[in-house]
Structures are given as structure tokens and as C-alpha cells.
């Protein structure tokens, strides 16, 4: 479990990225921090592995205050996946994935064997092991990024808009894969995104953030959509603006689901049977 206790972060120039934020991210579940850019969500994420230290308050992993753990060993036991993958361009795919185990002193043969397993887990052909990042597509690079985050078998996986830079089809693919991997591995995931659809697709717990990392609402995807806490949340979800207000419309081709503007959002896969 990850716990934020009244954390704040302000910078010398006076900007306050995070103000008095508290939250628990339960073990084995995916907590999604969602909000507009500049709301402090990435700052919160980076407090967990001490890439950012809070100005006040504390972050806890189970019973350990992260401030008491040296950054380097702390980061090695936490997986980190970032936008654009952040791969080392001069290292082969297999060495990129094995980076953390190798830093931890795992013998090379074992680290590479594990890296190949992870490639299969994230849906990469193992024949790509000896390629370099610039020889992969954006989606493949992102898969390598996920495999690298998992390589040291961390309990915690931090994901900072990991699928933000790939096209929508690939993104949907990666989201599906992440759900599958999570069903298998049950990591404690903290996932940052500005995309509410992604948050609803992946999160067990959704935390909608306003400026300064104020928690506008935290709850299950069902809760936030069914009972938005206030105007801000409803607006962010797109409720009332037609985004998530869906209706059924009969067409000659079947029942369509349309949004508030009458634009098709999908089709009804399992239409209610007409009473006879």
C-alpha cells in the first residue's frame, strides 16, 4: 500500500504544485491520478520514488516512510514507466529491459533470460531482443518500457502517461495488455493520465485532481460517473457537455449508442429483447 500523508510541494519561486494531499493507493490495485496538465499529478507520482521530495508531509510504502530510504535502492525496487519510454538509445532492447536487474547485480545470463520472458509477457517478439530502440515503433518502444519497469519484479509500478505518445489504436491495445498483465501479476500501480477514458478503462480507484492536486473526487469508476461529487468533476468527465451522457438510438442497422450531441459512441452489443 502507498499512503500520502498531507504532502505539499512548493518551489522556491513560490509556485505550489501540491497542497496538503492525502490518499491511499491499495496494494494489488490500480490507482489512476487523472487531471489536466499542471495539476500536480506527475509531482505526486514522483514523490513515491523520491524523484521529488515533498516540502512537507510524508509518503509511506506499507510501514516505511520513503524519506528514510536512500533514493537509489528505493528506485530499484519500484518500477517506473514514462511517456516516450525513456529507453537508452545506445542499448539493445534486451539490455534496456535488463537494466535494473543488472544494476542490482543479477548475473547477465539470468537477467537476459528474464528479459526474454518479459518480452513475451508484454507481447513483443523475442526476435526483437537485439534491436535498438530507434528500430522499433512507438508502441513497441512503450512495451519495452513496461517490460523494463517490471524487470526487477517490483511490487509497485509507477506509470507516468505511459501511453500518451502513441496513436489511439495502439493505445487501446496497450491498455488491454496492461489489464491482462495486471490480472496476472497484481502489482500496486499508480497511473497518471490526463485522459478520462483511459482512467475509466484502467483504474480500480480513480482520483480526479484539480489544481494544486486538490482531490475533487476519489472512488471507483462507477462511483465517479454515477455520482460526480461536484460541477468540476462532472465537467471533467464530460457529463452535461454530451461527452459521457449516452443515449440509445434505433437505426436500420441496429441499436446505436450516441453521445449528447447525437454522435455515435458505439453500438449496443447486447440489445434488450423486445417484449412479445
Amino acid at each position, binding site marked *: 500500500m502507498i499512503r500520502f500523508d498531507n504532502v505539499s510541494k512548493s518551489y522556491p519561486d513560490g509556485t505550489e504544485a501540491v497542497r496538503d494531499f492525502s490518499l491511499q493507493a491499495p496494494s494489488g490495485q490500480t490507482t489512476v491520478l487523472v487531471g489536466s496538465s499542471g495539476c500536480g499529478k506527475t509531482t505526486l507520482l514522483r514523490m513515491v520514488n523520491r524523484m521529488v521530495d515533498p516540502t512537507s508531509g510524508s509518503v509511506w510504502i506499507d510501514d516505511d516512510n520513503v524519506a528514510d530510504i536512500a533514493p537509489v*535502492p528505493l528506485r530499484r525496487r519500484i518500477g517506473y514507466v514514462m*511517456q*516516450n519510454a525513456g529507453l537508452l538509445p*545506445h542499448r539493445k532492447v534486451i539490455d534496456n529491459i535488463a537494466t535494473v536487474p543488472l544494476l542490482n547485480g543479477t548475473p547477465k545470463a539470468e537477467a537476459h533470460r528474464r528479459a526474454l520472458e518479459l518480452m513475451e509477457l508484454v507481447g513483443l517478439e523475442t526476435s526483437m531482443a537485439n534491436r535498438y530502440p530507434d528500430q522499433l515503433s512507438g508502441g513497441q518502444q512503450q512495451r519495452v518500457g513496461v517490460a523494463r519497469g517490471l524487470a526487477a519484479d517490483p511490487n509497485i509500478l509507477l506509470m507516468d502517461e505511459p501511453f500518451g505518445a502513441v496513436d489511439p489504436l495502439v493505445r487501446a491495445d496497450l491498455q488491454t495488455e496492461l489489464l491482462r498483465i495486471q490480472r496476472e501479476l497484481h502489482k500496486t500501480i499508480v497511473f497518471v493520465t490526463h485522459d478520462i477514458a483511459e482512467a475509466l478503462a484502467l483504474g480500480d480507484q480513480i482520483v480526479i485532481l484539480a489544481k494544486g492536486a486538490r482531490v475533487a473526487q476519489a472512488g471507483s469508476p462507477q462511483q465517479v460517473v454515477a455520482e460526480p461529487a461536484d460541477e468540476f468533476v462532472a465537467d471533467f468527465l464530460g457529463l452535461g457537455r454530451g461527452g459521457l451522457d449516452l443515449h440509445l438510438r434505433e437505426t436500420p442497422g441496429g441499436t446505436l449508442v450516441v453521445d449528447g450531441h447525437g454522435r455515435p459512441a458505439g453500438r449496443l452489443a447486447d440489445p434488450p429483447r423486445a417484449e412479445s
Partner: protein
Amino acid sequence: MNYFTEAIAWILDPANAEGSGGVWARSAEHLWYTLLAVLLASVIAIPLGYLVGHTGRGRGLVVASTGAARALPTLGVVTLVGLILGIGLVAPLVALVLLAVPSVLAGAYAGIEAIDPRTIDAARAMGMSDWQLLTRVEIPLGLPLLLGGVRSATLQVVATATLAAYVGAGGLGRFLFLGLKTQDYPQMLASALLVVLIALILEALFEIAERVTARRLHVV
């Protein structure tokens, strides 16, 4: 015959080629001075440049002081150090190292500064220590620009190493100063042509080295 063809003829004259004062020996000396100066400059400038590039601190100070070093007239430094330490190789070597340091230093820190900050950020977030970040990420990825810095330092030094002969050391400058004293202009021109030739060969070698490095690092 004009000076140019006379100079070529002078270079090709077997009488000028052999012996301890011949074209071959002087060229080797010239190359040796160049390599020694660039090597010494690298020993000083590369660690300093890495320190500046890695920490991001001290850049202003380094830029200002190396800029000042660049402004020093090399002939003046050779004369000054020669007056203090006497004639020989030390004085020109000091001047050549001073000449080479700014370029190598700039290459070393610019190489690190030019790395995508997201790559550095990811390396830190994975748990690399400062030393691991430097040796496994920053140094390899900074190599192409460092090589560029060493390249321009080498070219400046190879041209300026003729001044070694001004205070009694060897190198291709010997022919230049000898020709000046005896008004043997073809010999002076021959010396200059030989320096140009060595410079072009070094330039080609660096070009190849930079390309191979960039390709191997996948940073093109």
C-alpha cells in the same frame, strides 16, 4: 617554375626526405607534438567537462575562463613560457595545451548537455547512481560531440605546432623558420603544404571515427 611547383619539388626531393632533419622525421615530430598536446589537454579538460555537464554547475565560469584562454595569443604564450622555462619542447607544449583545452572542454560538457533530458530522467528513476548515470549513459551518449571537440582542438594544434620551432624544438616549423631566415620561400611553402596534408589526414580520420561512433550508439 612558380613557388608552388618549386615547393612540391622540394618535398619530393629525396635529399630532403631522409635523416633526422628530413621531411619524414620532422613530420613525425610534428604529429607527436600534436598528439601529446591534445592528449594532455584531454586529461585536463575531459574530467572537468564531465563534471560541468553532469552537475550542470560551473558552466558560466568555465565558458568565461576558456573564452579568455582562447583569446591568448599563442606566440606570446610560447615566448613568455620560453623566457621562464628556457628553450625546448615545454614552452610550446604549454601553449598548445592551452589552445586545445577550450575545444575539448566544450565538447565534453556539450556532449552531456545535448542528451535528451528524458533519457537522463529515466535512468535516474530506474535507480542509477550518479556514477552509473555518468559512466553508462552520459559518457557513451556524449561521445560524438566530445570527438567533435577533440577534432577541432587537434586541427588548431596541428596548425599551431609550427611555433615549436620558434623556441628551438622540432616539427615542420623548422622548415618554415629556416626558409624565412634564408629567404627560401619554396621551403616555407613546402612546410605549410605538409602541415595542410597532415591536417587533412587527421580530419578524415576524425570524420570516420565520428560516423562509426554515432552509428554504433544509434544516436544519429
